[in-house]
């Protein structure tokens, strides 16, 4: 793939959880875990999606049914066509004994990272059992649910010290709700553990020119979406503001 949009056909659909499906395309892609693609549905819109599945011959994205665009995408079937360009952005920097903590949409980035590095401890947080993702792909995943219907009850961030005592991680990766990532970052900073978080911002161009996705002096699409702890600790907007479609600053 490249800067030009390529039309690709859905070759497989996987039911991941309630209102969450993964779509697989038999299409080669040069890719590093953490990168995203722009997905085009002609006449509808074009939005960013993390690559959640990647092999030599295939790639996939996991779609959360939310608004207009994801409703369309979610309801697509094998043989349907979408446009993709990318992948864009940097990826995670892989090194040392590591943990990856994700939640919701953020799990997509976590699982491709974990596929490449099978020694990573994966931690997932979700509202409830039926929202947990990728359980078959990663049977050893550490799971948390808000309501305790599966795995431990509570947020993964409540158990950070405990996990760290046990595994002595050199690095923690995180992708998910910004409030969660902010907590992981603060924890890592206080313990001197390396940290990388993958941010989400409203995107338009995806290639670093339009200014839609900025977070302080950084473009999430091009300088990110993965940022390291030292950068994140200097980003005032992190955990606070993002730009809406018009460019208005809104709380994250």
């Amino acid at each position: 793939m490249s800067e030009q949009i390529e039309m690709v056909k859905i070759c497989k659909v996987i039911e991941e959880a309630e209102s969450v499906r993964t779509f697989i395309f038999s299409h080669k892609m040069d890719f590093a875990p953490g990168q995203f693609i722009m997905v085009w549905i002609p006449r509808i819109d074009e939005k960013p999606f993390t690559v959640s599945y990647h092999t030599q011959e295939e790639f996939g994205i996991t779609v959360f049914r939310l608004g207009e665009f994801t409703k369309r995408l979610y309801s697509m079937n094998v043989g349907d066509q979408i446009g993709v360009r990318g992948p864009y952005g940097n990826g995670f920097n892989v090194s040392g004994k590591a943990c990856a903590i994700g939640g919701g949409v953020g799990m997509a980035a976590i699982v491709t990272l974990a596929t490449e590095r099978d020694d990573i401890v994966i931690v997932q947080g979700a509202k409830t059992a039926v929202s947990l993702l990728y359980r078959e792909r990663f049977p050893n995943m550490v799971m948390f649910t808000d309501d305790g219907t599966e795995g431990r009850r509570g947020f993964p961030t409540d158990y950070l010290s405990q996990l760290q005592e046990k595994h002595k991680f050199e690095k923690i990766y995180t992708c998910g709700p910004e409030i969660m990532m902010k907590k992981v970052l603060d924890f890592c900073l206080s313990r001197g553990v390396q940290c990388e978080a993958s941010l989400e911002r409203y995107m338009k161009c995806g290639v670093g020119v339009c200014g839609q996705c900025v977070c302080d002096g950084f473009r999430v699409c091009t300088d990110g979406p993965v940022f390291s702890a030292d950068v994140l600790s200097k980003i005032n907007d992190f955990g606070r503001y993002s730009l809406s479609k018009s460019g208005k600053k809104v709380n994250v």
Partner: protein
Amino acid sequence: MKPPMTINLSADICGIKLVNPTILPAGFLGTTKEILKRVANSGAGAVTIKSISSVARDGHKNPTVLMYEAGMLNAVGYSNPGVKAAANEFSNIGEIGVPVIASIIGTEADDFLKVIDGFGDLLSKSKDSSSRFSAIEIPLSCPHTPGFGTLAGQSTPEATSEIVSAVRKKCGLPLFVKLSPNVPDISKLAMVAQDAGADAITAVNTMGPGMVINIDAREPVLDFKVGGVSGAALRPIAVRCVFDIYKAVEIPIIGVGGISSGRDAIEMMMAGASTVGIGTAIYDRGIDVFKGVTDEMSDWMTNNGVGSLNEIIGAAHK
């Protein structure tokens, strides 16, 4: 051996001093103060905010930006948070560290005035230059947003004259009028703008519009179907426009269109530009393109015994 030369890259546009002639043009990255600070720190001599209208606009749906082998197409559609939010965002504007140009848009002449009102002190000439915008720019030339620019007939001599005069009366800051390359006679338009009170001409906005069709989807790629063309494709057209305008008017020109190297910048200045805008090249060369271009200009000047930009500006007319 000759003694080493001192190269002076400082530029002047309507009395505004720039450490170098490179400017971030409207529509690229100019959404927040922090990102403009980054661009300034990366070497831009001045920066322009993303064009602001009186009320917030979501712009066109995506895809809004599209690369092709000879440049870029865009139909962003003037998404912006409206002047109230913008005035808030750009308070303490002095932090940016280089002159900041306010790009403002409107459908009728009145709308432009509303935006000026909305920015308040940020556009007041009586304020200290470090606590306000350095200049105001009005693009009468966007080719892909209904209600604005060429689609609203703002690039006719009559409309240009009317809007420029109205803004001129309202705001005492240096006034840049940004023209479209898609007009029958750009020199004439520049003269009309000058006569109506413009202090400088920004030439040019994107050309076209153009269209790219994805043949597998059998659909135009941009959601608005067509978009303005920028980048390398635009450069010779922009250079010709600047060359023509330079012959026609006394006021300085900000040359914009497809500049991505020091040679390109010097070419534009030889055509008659006093300063240059660099937008699309950010895609290929990153935000550091400003420093890159400035370094390349400086190298060429050293090799050619040219000490200052004054020896370059308009040199192709001799």
